[in-house]
Protein backbone atom coordinates (compact mmCIF):
# COMPACT_ATOMS: atom_id res chain seq x y z
CA UNK A 1 0.00 0.00 0.00
CA UNK A 2 1.10 3.49 -0.80
CA UNK A 3 2.19 5.45 2.25
CA UNK A 4 1.00 8.75 0.78
CA UNK A 5 -2.60 9.41 -0.21
CA UNK A 6 -4.23 11.33 -3.02
CA UNK A 7 -7.50 13.21 -2.56
CA UNK A 8 -10.30 14.14 -4.89
CA UNK A 9 -10.96 17.69 -3.70
CA UNK A 10 -13.83 18.63 -6.01
CA UNK A 11 -15.89 17.26 -8.87
CA UNK A 12 -17.99 19.08 -11.47
CA UNK A 13 -20.41 17.51 -13.92
CA UNK A 14 -22.05 19.04 -16.96
CA UNK A 15 -25.64 17.95 -17.32
CA UNK A 16 -25.91 15.11 -19.83
CA UNK A 17 -28.14 15.59 -22.83
CA UNK A 18 -28.99 13.68 -25.97
CA UNK A 19 -28.31 16.54 -28.38
CA UNK A 20 -26.57 19.57 -26.89
CA UNK A 21 -26.09 20.99 -30.40
CA UNK A 22 -26.14 24.52 -28.96
CA UNK A 23 -23.13 23.84 -26.70
CA UNK A 24 -19.65 23.38 -28.10
CA UNK A 25 -17.71 20.79 -26.16
CA UNK A 26 -15.27 23.60 -25.46
CA UNK A 27 -18.05 25.51 -23.72
CA UNK A 28 -19.05 22.44 -21.74
CA UNK A 29 -15.46 22.02 -20.52
CA UNK A 30 -15.30 25.70 -19.63
CA UNK A 31 -18.43 25.35 -17.47
CA UNK A 32 -16.77 22.43 -15.67
CA UNK A 33 -13.50 24.32 -15.22
CA UNK A 34 -15.26 27.40 -13.84
CA UNK A 35 -17.25 25.32 -11.40
CA UNK A 36 -14.15 23.53 -10.11
CA UNK A 37 -12.46 26.89 -9.59
CA UNK A 38 -15.53 28.27 -7.84
CA UNK A 39 -15.62 25.26 -5.50
CA UNK A 40 -11.94 25.19 -4.59
CA UNK A 41 -10.40 28.54 -5.44
CA UNK A 42 -7.47 26.85 -7.17
CA UNK A 43 -5.27 29.00 -9.39
CA UNK A 44 -2.85 28.46 -12.25
CA UNK A 45 0.02 30.03 -10.34
CA UNK A 46 3.32 28.49 -11.43
CA UNK A 47 4.42 27.75 -7.86
CA UNK A 48 1.20 26.91 -6.05
CA UNK A 49 -1.43 26.31 -8.71
CA UNK A 50 -2.42 23.63 -11.21
CA UNK A 51 0.33 22.97 -13.73
CA UNK A 52 -0.55 19.44 -14.80
CA UNK A 53 -3.76 18.47 -16.56
CA UNK A 54 -4.86 14.97 -17.53
CA UNK A 55 -7.61 15.05 -20.13
CA UNK A 56 -9.85 12.49 -21.75
CA UNK A 57 -11.52 12.77 -25.15
CA UNK A 58 -12.07 10.68 -28.24
CA UNK A 59 -10.63 11.74 -31.59
CA UNK A 60 -13.37 10.09 -33.64
CA UNK A 61 -16.19 11.63 -31.62
CA UNK A 62 -14.50 15.05 -31.78
CA UNK A 63 -13.75 14.44 -35.49
CA UNK A 64 -10.30 15.88 -34.79
CA UNK A 65 -7.02 14.10 -34.25
CA UNK A 66 -5.01 14.86 -31.07
CA UNK A 67 -8.36 16.10 -29.79
CA UNK A 68 -6.85 17.55 -26.61
CA UNK A 69 -4.80 20.17 -28.47
CA UNK A 70 -7.94 21.89 -29.73
CA UNK A 71 -9.41 22.30 -26.25
CA UNK A 72 -6.21 23.15 -24.35
CA UNK A 73 -7.45 26.56 -23.17
CA UNK A 74 -10.68 25.27 -21.65
CA UNK A 75 -8.85 22.36 -20.03
CA UNK A 76 -6.80 24.98 -18.23
CA UNK A 77 -3.85 23.48 -20.08
CA UNK A 78 -2.62 26.44 -22.12
CA UNK A 79 0.98 27.25 -21.09
CA UNK A 80 0.99 24.18 -18.85
CA UNK A 81 1.69 20.44 -18.95
CA UNK A 82 -1.07 18.23 -20.35
CA UNK A 83 -1.58 14.63 -21.37
CA UNK A 84 -4.59 12.89 -22.81
CA UNK A 85 -5.80 9.46 -21.79
CA UNK A 86 -6.71 7.47 -24.89
CA UNK A 87 -8.97 5.32 -22.71
CA UNK A 88 -12.13 5.78 -20.70
CA UNK A 89 -11.82 8.75 -18.34
CA UNK A 90 -11.67 6.80 -15.07
CA UNK A 91 -8.13 5.95 -16.14
CA UNK A 92 -7.32 9.66 -16.07
CA UNK A 93 -7.96 9.51 -12.31
CA UNK A 94 -5.59 6.55 -12.00
CA UNK A 95 -3.01 8.39 -14.06
CA UNK A 96 -3.40 11.59 -12.03
CA UNK A 97 -2.95 9.56 -8.84
CA UNK A 98 0.31 8.13 -10.20
CA UNK A 99 1.51 11.63 -11.18
CA UNK A 100 0.91 12.88 -7.62
CA UNK A 101 2.31 9.78 -5.87
CA UNK A 102 5.48 10.04 -7.97
CA UNK A 103 6.05 13.53 -6.61
CA UNK A 104 5.97 15.06 -10.09
CA UNK A 105 3.01 17.30 -9.19
CA UNK A 106 0.90 17.88 -6.10
CA UNK A 107 -2.19 19.21 -7.91
CA UNK A 108 -3.74 17.67 -11.02
CA UNK A 109 -6.82 18.68 -12.92
CA UNK A 110 -8.72 15.85 -14.65
CA UNK A 111 -11.03 16.93 -17.49
CA UNK A 112 -13.11 14.83 -19.89
CA UNK A 113 -15.65 15.54 -22.58
CA UNK A 114 -17.57 13.81 -25.35
CA UNK A 115 -20.52 14.67 -27.58
CA UNK A 116 -21.85 11.44 -29.01
CA UNK A 117 -24.54 13.42 -30.85
CA UNK A 118 -21.96 15.00 -33.16
CA UNK A 119 -21.56 11.79 -35.15
CA UNK A 120 -24.18 10.32 -37.43
CA UNK A 121 -23.79 7.01 -35.61
CA UNK A 122 -21.86 6.17 -32.46
CA UNK A 123 -22.00 2.55 -33.63
CA UNK A 124 -20.03 3.50 -36.74
CA UNK A 125 -17.33 4.97 -34.52
CA UNK A 126 -17.27 1.77 -32.47
CA UNK A 127 -16.94 -0.22 -35.71
CA UNK A 128 -13.73 1.72 -36.42
CA UNK A 129 -12.33 0.31 -33.20
CA UNK A 130 -12.25 -3.16 -34.74
CA UNK A 131 -9.50 -4.49 -36.99
CA UNK A 132 -10.35 -3.95 -40.68
CA UNK A 133 -10.00 -7.58 -41.78
CA UNK A 134 -11.95 -9.68 -39.28
CA UNK A 135 -14.09 -7.37 -37.16
CA UNK A 136 -14.85 -4.20 -39.08
CA UNK A 137 -15.62 -6.17 -42.26
CA UNK A 138 -18.44 -8.12 -40.63
CA UNK A 139 -19.93 -4.94 -39.16
CA UNK A 140 -19.04 -5.48 -35.51
CA UNK A 141 -19.79 -2.54 -33.23
CA UNK A 142 -20.35 -2.00 -29.50
CA UNK A 143 -24.04 -2.84 -29.70
CA UNK A 144 -23.92 -6.11 -31.63
CA UNK A 145 -20.86 -7.29 -29.72
CA UNK A 146 -22.74 -6.52 -26.48
CA UNK A 147 -25.75 -8.41 -27.80
CA UNK A 148 -23.59 -11.53 -28.24
CA UNK A 149 -22.41 -11.10 -24.65
CA UNK A 150 -25.95 -10.45 -23.44
CA UNK A 151 -27.31 -13.68 -24.89
CA UNK A 152 -24.49 -15.75 -23.43
CA UNK A 153 -24.73 -14.06 -20.02
CA UNK A 154 -28.54 -14.18 -19.71
CA UNK A 155 -28.36 -17.93 -20.28
CA UNK A 156 -25.56 -18.44 -17.78
CA UNK A 157 -27.07 -16.30 -15.01
CA UNK A 158 -30.73 -17.05 -15.63
CA UNK A 159 -31.36 -13.37 -16.30
CA UNK A 160 -34.87 -12.75 -17.68
CA UNK A 161 -36.71 -10.00 -19.54
CA UNK A 162 -38.24 -9.08 -16.16
CA UNK A 163 -34.80 -8.67 -14.59
CA UNK A 164 -33.67 -6.40 -17.41
CA UNK A 165 -36.88 -4.36 -17.24
CA UNK A 166 -36.44 -4.05 -13.48
CA UNK A 167 -32.94 -2.65 -13.95
CA UNK A 168 -34.19 -0.02 -16.42
CA UNK A 169 -37.18 0.96 -14.22
CA UNK A 170 -34.91 1.40 -11.19
CA UNK A 171 -32.33 3.30 -13.25
CA UNK A 172 -34.93 5.88 -14.23
CA UNK A 173 -36.23 6.21 -10.68
CA UNK A 174 -32.76 7.20 -9.51
CA UNK A 175 -31.99 9.26 -12.61
CA UNK A 176 -35.09 11.33 -11.85
CA UNK A 177 -33.32 12.41 -8.63
CA UNK A 178 -30.06 13.23 -10.43
CA UNK A 179 -30.10 16.68 -12.05
CA UNK A 180 -27.07 15.73 -14.23
CA UNK A 181 -28.63 12.57 -15.72
CA UNK A 182 -29.92 12.44 -19.27
CA UNK A 183 -32.87 9.99 -19.43
CA UNK A 184 -34.88 10.95 -16.34
CA UNK A 185 -38.40 9.95 -17.36
CA UNK A 186 -39.98 7.23 -15.24
CA UNK A 187 -40.78 4.07 -17.24
CA UNK A 188 -42.92 1.03 -16.42
CA UNK A 189 -41.59 -2.51 -16.77
CA UNK A 190 -44.21 -3.29 -19.41
CA UNK A 191 -42.94 -0.48 -21.61
CA UNK A 192 -39.38 -1.80 -21.38
CA UNK A 193 -40.45 -5.34 -22.26
CA UNK A 194 -42.55 -4.00 -25.14
CA UNK A 195 -39.81 -1.77 -26.53
CA UNK A 196 -38.54 -3.05 -29.90
CA UNK A 197 -35.57 -5.39 -30.19
CA UNK A 198 -32.51 -3.44 -31.33
CA UNK A 199 -30.13 -6.34 -31.47
CA UNK A 200 -31.53 -9.45 -29.79
CA UNK A 201 -31.72 -9.76 -26.84
CA UNK A 202 -30.98 -6.05 -26.35
CA UNK A 203 -34.13 -3.93 -26.60
CA UNK A 204 -34.25 -0.23 -27.27
CA UNK A 205 -34.81 0.67 -23.59
CA UNK A 206 -32.00 -1.69 -22.50
CA UNK A 207 -29.47 0.60 -24.18
CA UNK A 208 -28.14 3.93 -22.89
CA UNK A 209 -29.34 6.97 -24.83
CA UNK A 210 -27.02 8.94 -27.14
CA UNK A 211 -25.38 11.36 -24.71
CA UNK A 212 -23.26 14.50 -24.56
CA UNK A 213 -21.42 15.50 -21.42
CA UNK A 214 -18.31 16.79 -19.69
CA UNK A 215 -16.90 16.14 -16.23
CA UNK A 216 -13.87 17.23 -14.25
CA UNK A 217 -12.08 16.81 -10.91
CA UNK A 218 -9.36 18.43 -8.89
CA UNK A 219 -6.92 15.98 -7.29
CA UNK A 220 -4.33 16.91 -4.68
CA UNK A 221 -1.63 15.34 -2.56
CA UNK A 222 -2.50 14.62 1.08
CA UNK A 223 -0.36 17.58 2.16
CA UNK A 224 -2.30 20.05 0.05
CA UNK A 225 -5.87 18.70 0.01
CA UNK A 226 -7.01 20.83 2.96
CA UNK A 227 -6.26 24.00 0.96
CA UNK A 228 -9.10 23.10 -1.41
CA UNK A 229 -11.68 21.18 0.57
CA UNK A 230 -12.71 20.16 4.06
CA UNK A 231 -14.30 17.01 2.65
CA UNK A 232 -11.56 15.17 0.77
CA UNK A 233 -12.36 11.82 -0.83
CA UNK A 234 -9.31 9.55 -0.77
CA UNK A 235 -8.19 7.23 -3.51
CA UNK A 236 -7.66 3.91 -1.76
CA UNK A 237 -6.89 1.84 -4.83
CA UNK A 238 -6.92 1.89 -8.62
CA UNK A 239 -6.21 -0.84 -11.16
CA UNK A 240 -7.12 -1.84 -14.68
CA UNK A 241 -6.76 -4.87 -16.91
CA UNK A 242 -6.91 -5.51 -20.66
CA UNK A 243 -8.41 -8.70 -22.11
CA UNK A 244 -7.98 -10.22 -25.60
CA UNK A 245 -8.92 -8.08 -28.59
CA UNK A 246 -10.72 -10.73 -30.63
CA UNK A 247 -14.17 -11.57 -29.24
CA UNK A 248 -13.67 -15.26 -30.00
CA UNK A 249 -10.58 -15.42 -27.78
CA UNK A 250 -12.65 -14.49 -24.75
CA UNK A 251 -15.28 -16.20 -22.65
CA UNK A 252 -17.72 -13.29 -22.86
CA UNK A 253 -19.36 -14.15 -19.53
CA UNK A 254 -16.20 -14.83 -17.48
CA UNK A 255 -15.28 -11.24 -16.50
CA UNK A 256 -11.60 -12.17 -16.70
CA UNK A 257 -10.26 -8.61 -17.01
CA UNK A 258 -12.67 -7.11 -14.50
CA UNK A 259 -11.83 -9.73 -11.88
CA UNK A 260 -8.13 -8.99 -12.37
CA UNK A 261 -8.66 -5.23 -12.15
CA UNK A 262 -10.93 -5.50 -9.11
CA UNK A 263 -8.59 -7.91 -7.32
CA UNK A 264 -5.63 -5.59 -7.80
CA UNK A 265 -7.61 -2.51 -6.73
CA UNK A 266 -8.95 -4.28 -3.61
CA UNK A 267 -5.43 -5.40 -2.65
CA UNK A 268 -4.13 -1.85 -2.99
CA UNK A 269 -7.02 -0.63 -0.82
CA UNK A 270 -6.42 -3.34 1.78
CA UNK A 271 -9.86 -4.84 1.16
CA UNK A 272 -9.97 -8.53 2.02
CA UNK A 273 -13.68 -9.12 1.42
CA UNK A 274 -15.40 -6.60 -0.87
CA UNK A 275 -18.84 -7.97 0.07
CA UNK A 276 -18.30 -6.71 3.64
CA UNK A 277 -16.30 -3.58 2.95
CA UNK A 278 -18.01 -1.81 0.03
CA UNK A 279 -20.94 0.52 0.74
CA UNK A 280 -21.70 1.92 -2.70
CA UNK A 281 -21.01 0.91 -6.29
CA UNK A 282 -21.17 2.81 -9.57
CA UNK A 283 -20.78 0.50 -12.58
CA UNK A 284 -20.57 1.54 -16.23
CA UNK A 285 -23.68 -0.17 -17.54
CA UNK A 286 -24.11 0.79 -21.19
CA UNK A 287 -26.76 -1.92 -21.48
CA UNK A 288 -29.04 -3.27 -18.77
CA UNK A 289 -27.56 -6.81 -18.72
CA UNK A 290 -24.13 -5.34 -17.91
CA UNK A 291 -25.13 -4.14 -14.45
CA UNK A 292 -25.33 -7.65 -12.87
CA UNK A 293 -22.47 -8.92 -15.08
CA UNK A 294 -20.06 -6.25 -13.88
CA UNK A 295 -21.32 -6.75 -10.29
CA UNK A 296 -20.20 -10.39 -10.61
CA UNK A 297 -16.83 -9.23 -11.92
CA UNK A 298 -16.44 -6.90 -8.94
CA UNK A 299 -16.91 -9.93 -6.69
CA UNK A 300 -20.09 -8.66 -5.00
CA UNK A 301 -21.78 -11.93 -5.90
CA UNK A 302 -20.61 -15.24 -7.30
CA UNK A 303 -20.08 -16.25 -10.90
CA UNK A 304 -23.40 -16.60 -12.69
CA UNK A 305 -25.30 -15.27 -9.65
CA UNK A 306 -26.18 -11.88 -11.11
CA UNK A 307 -29.90 -12.63 -11.34
CA UNK A 308 -29.95 -13.87 -7.76
CA UNK A 309 -28.13 -10.71 -6.71
CA UNK A 310 -31.00 -8.69 -8.20
CA UNK A 311 -33.67 -10.95 -6.66
CA UNK A 312 -32.11 -10.72 -3.20
CA UNK A 313 -31.92 -6.93 -3.10
CA UNK A 314 -28.23 -6.64 -3.87
CA UNK A 315 -28.77 -3.34 -5.68
CA UNK A 316 -30.02 -1.69 -2.50
CA UNK A 317 -27.54 -3.44 -0.20
CA UNK A 318 -24.60 -2.16 -2.24
CA UNK A 319 -26.34 1.04 -3.43
CA UNK A 320 -25.67 0.22 -7.07
CA UNK A 321 -25.82 3.18 -9.46
CA UNK A 322 -27.79 5.63 -7.31
CA UNK A 323 -26.88 8.17 -10.01
CA UNK A 324 -28.95 6.26 -12.55
CA UNK A 325 -25.74 4.84 -13.96
CA UNK A 326 -24.60 5.01 -17.53
CA UNK A 327 -27.95 3.53 -18.52
CA UNK A 328 -29.47 6.93 -17.74
CA UNK A 329 -27.09 8.47 -20.26
CA UNK A 330 -23.39 9.38 -20.18
CA UNK A 331 -21.11 9.54 -23.23
CA UNK A 332 -19.10 6.37 -23.70
CA UNK A 333 -15.55 7.66 -23.26
CA UNK A 334 -16.23 9.45 -19.94
CA UNK A 335 -19.03 7.34 -18.42
CA UNK A 336 -16.57 5.88 -15.89
CA UNK A 337 -15.31 9.33 -14.94
CA UNK A 338 -18.95 10.27 -14.26
CA UNK A 339 -19.18 7.13 -12.09
CA UNK A 340 -16.20 8.34 -10.03
CA UNK A 341 -17.68 11.84 -9.76
CA UNK A 342 -20.96 10.43 -8.46
CA UNK A 343 -19.22 8.10 -6.00
CA UNK A 344 -17.18 11.05 -4.73
CA UNK A 345 -20.30 13.21 -4.31
CA UNK A 346 -21.94 10.41 -2.32
CA UNK A 347 -18.93 10.07 -0.01
CA UNK A 348 -18.91 13.86 0.48
CA UNK A 349 -22.60 13.77 1.38
CA UNK A 350 -23.39 16.10 -1.53
CA UNK A 351 -25.54 13.80 -3.68
CA UNK A 352 -28.79 15.64 -3.00
CA UNK A 353 -31.98 13.62 -3.39
CA UNK A 354 -30.02 10.51 -4.31
CA UNK A 355 -27.76 10.65 -1.24
CA UNK A 356 -27.26 7.37 0.65
CA UNK A 357 -26.54 7.40 4.41
CA UNK A 358 -23.55 5.98 6.27
CA UNK A 359 -21.00 5.63 3.50
CA UNK A 360 -17.37 4.85 4.10
CA UNK A 361 -16.09 3.21 0.94
CA UNK A 362 -17.25 3.20 -2.70
CA UNK A 363 -16.26 1.58 -5.98
CA UNK A 364 -16.33 3.26 -9.39
CA UNK A 365 -15.99 1.04 -12.46
CA UNK A 366 -15.42 1.65 -16.14
CA UNK A 367 -14.92 -0.34 -19.30
CA UNK A 368 -13.93 0.18 -22.93
CA UNK A 369 -13.72 -2.08 -25.92
CA UNK A 370 -16.37 -4.36 -27.31
CA UNK A 371 -18.18 -6.46 -24.71
CA UNK A 372 -15.89 -5.28 -21.91
CA UNK A 373 -12.39 -5.88 -23.25
CA UNK A 374 -10.81 -3.45 -20.79
CA UNK A 375 -11.90 -2.68 -17.23
CA UNK A 376 -10.84 -0.18 -14.58
CA UNK A 377 -11.71 -0.11 -10.89
CA UNK A 378 -11.30 2.82 -8.51
CA UNK A 379 -11.82 2.50 -4.75
CA UNK A 380 -12.70 5.71 -2.91
CA UNK A 381 -12.88 6.35 0.85
CA UNK A 382 -14.11 9.08 3.07
Amino acid at each position, binding site marked *: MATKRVAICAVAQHKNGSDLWHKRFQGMLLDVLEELQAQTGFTFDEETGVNTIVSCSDDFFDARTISDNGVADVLGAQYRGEEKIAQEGLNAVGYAQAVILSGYADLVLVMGHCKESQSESRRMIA*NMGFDPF*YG*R*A*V*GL*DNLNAAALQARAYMKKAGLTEEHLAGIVVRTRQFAARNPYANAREIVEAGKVIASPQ*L*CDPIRQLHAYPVSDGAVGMLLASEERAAEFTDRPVWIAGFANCMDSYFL*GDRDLTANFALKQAAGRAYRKAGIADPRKEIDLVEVMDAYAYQQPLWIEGLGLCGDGEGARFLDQGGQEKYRVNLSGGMLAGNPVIIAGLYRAAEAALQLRGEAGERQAPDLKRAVAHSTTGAAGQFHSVLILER
Partner: protein
Amino acid sequence: MTMQEDHKDCFVLEGKMALPNQYFAGRLGSRFLIAIRDRKKIMGLKCNQCGKTFVPPREYCEKCWTKIADNWVELGTEGELVNFTVVRYGDRHLPKKPPYILGQIRLDGADTPLVHIVEGIDPREVESGIRVKAVFAAKTTNTIMDIDHFEPV
Protein backbone atom coordinates in the same frame (compact mmCIF):
# COMPACT_ATOMS: atom_id res chain seq x y z
CA MET B 1 -24.88 23.85 -14.65
CA THR B 2 -28.13 24.86 -16.26
CA MET B 3 -28.74 25.14 -19.96
CA GLN B 4 -30.87 28.17 -20.63
CA GLU B 5 -28.68 29.57 -23.36
CA ASP B 6 -29.99 31.79 -26.10
CA HIS B 7 -30.11 29.80 -29.37
CA LYS B 8 -30.58 32.84 -31.63
CA ASP B 9 -28.16 32.88 -34.59
CA CYS B 10 -26.66 29.53 -33.49
CA PHE B 11 -25.82 27.05 -36.25
CA VAL B 12 -23.95 23.79 -36.79
CA LEU B 13 -21.47 22.92 -39.54
CA GLU B 14 -21.96 19.63 -41.38
CA GLY B 15 -18.72 17.65 -41.70
CA LYS B 16 -17.57 14.29 -43.00
CA MET B 17 -14.50 12.27 -42.13
CA ALA B 18 -13.43 10.42 -45.28
CA LEU B 19 -9.76 9.56 -45.65
CA PRO B 20 -8.60 6.82 -48.02
CA ASN B 21 -5.99 4.73 -46.23
CA GLN B 22 -4.19 1.38 -46.29
CA TYR B 23 -3.61 -1.48 -43.87
CA PHE B 24 -0.94 -4.13 -44.33
CA ALA B 25 -2.65 -7.47 -43.75
CA GLY B 26 0.45 -8.83 -42.03
CA ARG B 27 2.46 -11.86 -43.12
CA LEU B 28 0.18 -14.29 -41.31
CA GLY B 29 -2.97 -12.36 -42.17
CA SER B 30 -2.02 -12.31 -45.85
CA ARG B 31 -1.51 -16.08 -45.90
CA PHE B 32 -4.74 -16.66 -44.01
CA LEU B 33 -6.82 -14.48 -46.35
CA ILE B 34 -5.12 -15.81 -49.52
CA ALA B 35 -5.98 -19.38 -48.44
CA ILE B 36 -9.64 -18.38 -48.18
CA ARG B 37 -9.60 -16.35 -51.38
CA ASP B 38 -7.66 -18.74 -53.66
CA ARG B 39 -8.12 -22.19 -52.12
CA LYS B 40 -11.37 -21.89 -50.14
CA LYS B 41 -9.55 -23.18 -47.09
CA ILE B 42 -9.70 -21.73 -43.57
CA MET B 43 -6.44 -22.04 -41.67
CA GLY B 44 -5.73 -21.77 -37.95
CA LEU B 45 -2.61 -21.56 -35.84
CA LYS B 46 -2.15 -24.16 -33.14
CA CYS B 47 -0.28 -23.89 -29.88
CA ASN B 48 1.21 -27.32 -29.22
CA GLN B 49 1.93 -26.30 -25.63
CA CYS B 50 -1.70 -25.45 -24.77
CA GLY B 51 -3.33 -27.52 -27.48
CA LYS B 52 -5.39 -24.48 -28.41
CA THR B 53 -6.05 -23.54 -32.05
CA PHE B 54 -6.56 -19.87 -32.83
CA VAL B 55 -8.34 -18.09 -35.65
CA PRO B 56 -7.81 -15.32 -36.88
CA PRO B 57 -4.04 -15.92 -37.03
CA ARG B 58 -1.50 -14.44 -34.63
CA GLU B 59 2.21 -15.02 -33.94
CA TYR B 60 2.06 -15.99 -30.28
CA CYS B 61 -0.24 -18.02 -28.08
CA GLU B 62 -1.78 -15.48 -25.72
CA LYS B 63 -1.91 -18.01 -22.89
CA CYS B 64 1.67 -19.28 -22.76
CA TRP B 65 3.66 -17.04 -25.13
CA THR B 66 4.73 -19.95 -27.34
CA LYS B 67 5.54 -18.74 -30.85
CA ILE B 68 2.97 -20.40 -33.06
CA ALA B 69 3.50 -18.43 -36.30
CA ASP B 70 4.57 -21.48 -38.33
CA ASN B 71 2.22 -24.03 -36.87
CA TRP B 72 -0.60 -23.77 -39.41
CA VAL B 73 -3.41 -26.31 -39.28
CA GLU B 74 -6.30 -26.61 -41.70
CA LEU B 75 -9.70 -26.03 -40.10
CA GLY B 76 -13.02 -27.28 -41.36
CA THR B 77 -15.21 -25.00 -43.44
CA GLU B 78 -18.08 -26.18 -41.27
CA GLY B 79 -18.65 -25.60 -37.60
CA GLU B 80 -21.10 -24.91 -34.79
CA LEU B 81 -23.02 -21.69 -34.28
CA VAL B 82 -22.18 -21.14 -30.61
CA ASN B 83 -23.81 -17.72 -30.14
CA PHE B 84 -25.74 -15.18 -32.21
CA THR B 85 -27.67 -11.94 -32.30
CA VAL B 86 -30.18 -10.54 -34.78
CA VAL B 87 -29.14 -7.09 -35.99
CA ARG B 88 -32.34 -5.06 -36.38
CA TYR B 89 -30.94 -1.56 -36.88
CA GLY B 90 -29.52 -0.06 -40.03
CA ASP B 91 -26.12 1.64 -40.19
CA ARG B 92 -23.62 2.48 -42.91
CA HIS B 93 -20.90 0.20 -41.53
CA LEU B 94 -23.11 -2.89 -41.58
CA PRO B 95 -22.54 -5.27 -44.50
CA LYS B 96 -26.21 -6.31 -44.72
CA LYS B 97 -29.65 -4.78 -44.50
CA PRO B 98 -31.45 -5.57 -41.25
CA PRO B 99 -32.68 -7.86 -39.96
CA TYR B 100 -29.85 -10.35 -40.26
CA ILE B 101 -28.06 -12.83 -38.02
CA LEU B 102 -24.57 -12.10 -36.72
CA GLY B 103 -23.11 -15.23 -35.15
CA GLN B 104 -20.07 -16.70 -33.47
CA ILE B 105 -19.05 -19.82 -35.37
CA ARG B 106 -16.61 -22.33 -33.92
CA LEU B 107 -15.10 -24.01 -36.96
CA ASP B 108 -14.23 -27.68 -36.74
CA GLY B 109 -10.68 -27.87 -35.40
CA ALA B 110 -10.69 -24.35 -33.93
CA ASP B 111 -11.09 -23.26 -30.30
CA THR B 112 -11.86 -19.59 -30.89
CA PRO B 113 -15.15 -18.80 -32.66
CA LEU B 114 -15.19 -16.41 -35.62
CA VAL B 115 -17.78 -13.66 -35.88
CA HIS B 116 -19.66 -13.83 -39.16
CA ILE B 117 -23.02 -13.50 -40.87
CA VAL B 118 -25.47 -16.40 -40.93
CA GLU B 119 -28.01 -16.64 -43.74
CA GLY B 120 -30.42 -19.26 -45.02
CA ILE B 121 -32.39 -19.48 -41.80
CA ASP B 122 -35.17 -17.28 -40.47
CA PRO B 123 -33.92 -15.02 -37.64
CA ARG B 124 -36.96 -16.18 -35.63
CA GLU B 125 -35.86 -19.83 -35.88
CA VAL B 126 -32.13 -19.61 -35.38
CA GLU B 127 -30.70 -21.37 -32.33
CA SER B 128 -27.26 -21.83 -30.84
CA GLY B 129 -25.85 -25.26 -31.49
CA ILE B 130 -26.81 -25.63 -35.15
CA ARG B 131 -24.21 -26.76 -37.68
CA VAL B 132 -23.26 -24.20 -40.33
CA LYS B 133 -20.93 -24.14 -43.34
CA ALA B 134 -18.98 -21.40 -45.08
CA VAL B 135 -20.26 -20.04 -48.36
CA PHE B 136 -17.33 -18.42 -50.14
CA ALA B 137 -17.71 -15.07 -51.90
CA ALA B 138 -17.68 -14.83 -55.66
CA LYS B 139 -15.76 -11.56 -55.52
CA THR B 140 -12.81 -10.89 -53.22
CA THR B 141 -12.52 -7.98 -50.79
CA ASN B 142 -9.31 -9.38 -49.22
CA THR B 143 -11.06 -9.53 -45.86
CA ILE B 144 -12.93 -12.21 -43.94
CA MET B 145 -15.86 -11.27 -46.21
CA ASP B 146 -14.18 -13.55 -48.77
CA ILE B 147 -16.38 -15.93 -46.83
CA ASP B 148 -19.67 -14.34 -47.89
CA HIS B 149 -21.64 -15.88 -45.03
CA PHE B 150 -22.37 -19.13 -43.21
CA GLU B 151 -25.54 -21.13 -43.69
CA PRO B 152 -27.07 -24.21 -42.08
CA VAL B 153 -25.55 -27.51 -43.24
